């Protein structure tokens, strides 16, 4: 690079200034970072595979979990994640276009494409935040057994999932949330679920068209639905009402599923976020003309590599978390 000190020994093979890989120092270091980061992500994804193979018969089915699209009600498996994937690929494209414009020293175009890239990244991070919020909130609610297994509910007639609120009864004086006005000594208790176990049990007994869906996957690749007697027998082990998801338990099934969801998409989302921040910095540098003065736009190329890597990782997360 221009800043390299010239020692007059360039003719000598070991005298420095050689570039056996044909890439500058900065670009090589970015590649090395990407390789090591790729190994970190692989570690996460493979450990996800480990847990999944370990509980292969009871693992949640992803397209039954991620069925929401913002502003629309109904069951739309995968559509929103596919949209997110497309947004990220699209922002990758604008990034390549920025790099290409940089090679041709077209400052205005680089600014325009960098701007689009930042917007794409922001939409993606926003979508991911929404996806997290939906996942944490949950939609149907479930019962956890003493063994820590999740029991979900289905409507026997339609075959669709039934929410706890569809059949649970309200028993007065059952649920009392401790409030500060009720005592001199106020300890904040754990927030109560919408229904207590007893309320769900009573509601279940009173509505004969509700059946229980266990975690076990049958030969058809679907979750096993118990008949009425089995359902009632199974409910004897009920210990907790679970709504939504956190790191300890979730209504979707295996606890590890939510843990890996938070960890892997969270780590990826953090990468996207930092990518957006770096892109913004470079965006302003381009506006200020830093790279015009430097004489080349290699910096755009380097952050471009990072940005494409984020896209690359998402392609794998999409497959292994949502599709497979």
């Amino acid at each position, binding site marked *: 690079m221009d800043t390299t000190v010239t020692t007059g020994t360039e003719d000598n093979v070991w005298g420095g200034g050689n570039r*056996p*890989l*044909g*890439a*500058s120092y900065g670009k090589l270091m970015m*590649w090395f970072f*990407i*390789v090591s980061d*790729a*190994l970190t992500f*692989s*570690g996460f994804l*493979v*450990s996800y*595979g*480990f*847990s*999944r*193979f*370990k*509980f292969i*018969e009871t693992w949640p089915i992803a*397209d039954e979990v991620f069925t929401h699209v913002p502003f629309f009600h109904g069951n739309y*498996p*995968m*559509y929103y994640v*596919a949209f997110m*994937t*497309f947004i990220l*690929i699209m922002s*990758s*494209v604008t*990034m*390549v*276009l920025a*790099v*290409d414009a940089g*090679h041709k020293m077209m400052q205005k175009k680089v600014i325009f494409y960098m701007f689009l890239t930042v917007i794409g990244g922001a939409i993606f991070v926003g979508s991911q935040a929404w996806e997290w919020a939906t996942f944490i909130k949950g939609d149907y609610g479930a019962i956890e*057994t*003493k*063994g820590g*297994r999740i029991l979900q509910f289905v409507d026997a007639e339609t075959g669709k999932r039934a929410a706890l609120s569809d059949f649970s009864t309200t028993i007065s004086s059952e649920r009392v949330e401790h409030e500060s006005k009720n005592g001199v000594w106020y300890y904040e208790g754990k927030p109560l679920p919408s229904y207590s176990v007893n309320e769900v049990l009573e509601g279940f007994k009173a509505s004969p068209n509700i059946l229980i869906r266990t*975690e076990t996957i049958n030969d058809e*690749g679907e979750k096993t639905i118990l008949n009425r007697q089995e359902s009632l027998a199974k409910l004897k*082990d009920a210990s907790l009402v679970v709504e939504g998801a956190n790191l300890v338990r979730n209504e979707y099934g295996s606890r590890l599923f939510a843990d890996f969801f938070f960890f892997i998409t969270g780590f990826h989302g953090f990468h996207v976020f930092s990518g957006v921040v770096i892109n913004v910095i470079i965006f302003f540098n381009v506006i200020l003309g830093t790279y015009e003065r430097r004489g080349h736009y*290699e910096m755009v*190329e380097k952050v*471009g*590599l990072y940005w*494409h*890597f984020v*896209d*690359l990782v998402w*392609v*794998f997360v*999409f*497959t292994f978390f*949502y*599709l*497979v």
Partner: protein
Amino acid sequence: MAHEHKLEIFRGLLKFKSNIQKIWGVLVFLSIVTAIEVALGIIKPELLTKNYFLGMKLLNWIFIILTLVKAYYIAWDFMHLRDEKSSLRRAIVWTPIFLVSYLIFILLFEADYIYNVFKDGFLAWDF
């Protein structure tokens, strides 16, 4: 910096006039692959979910292969590995492939073993 670009994909089957055209071409290809993945994921054809290869559903094999195809085009055209020296390309690509293959092999086998212990052992965990 590699200024000249190799402008053909699919082993020369498709040639582009400029780098910008190639970028859009790759985007179209990646979008088609993603659309196929999502469509298969929603339809789940019985032919692909009933048949297994090496203990995994054919559908999942298709997903994984399509993912690797997408990864190839992202790395080769967006990260312009296609234009880099082959020594750099090999160092970057084969190192993780080797390490990750090993990791996948060892962890998935171990997981399958634990699954069998849970299943056949006297330990009850599903109650």
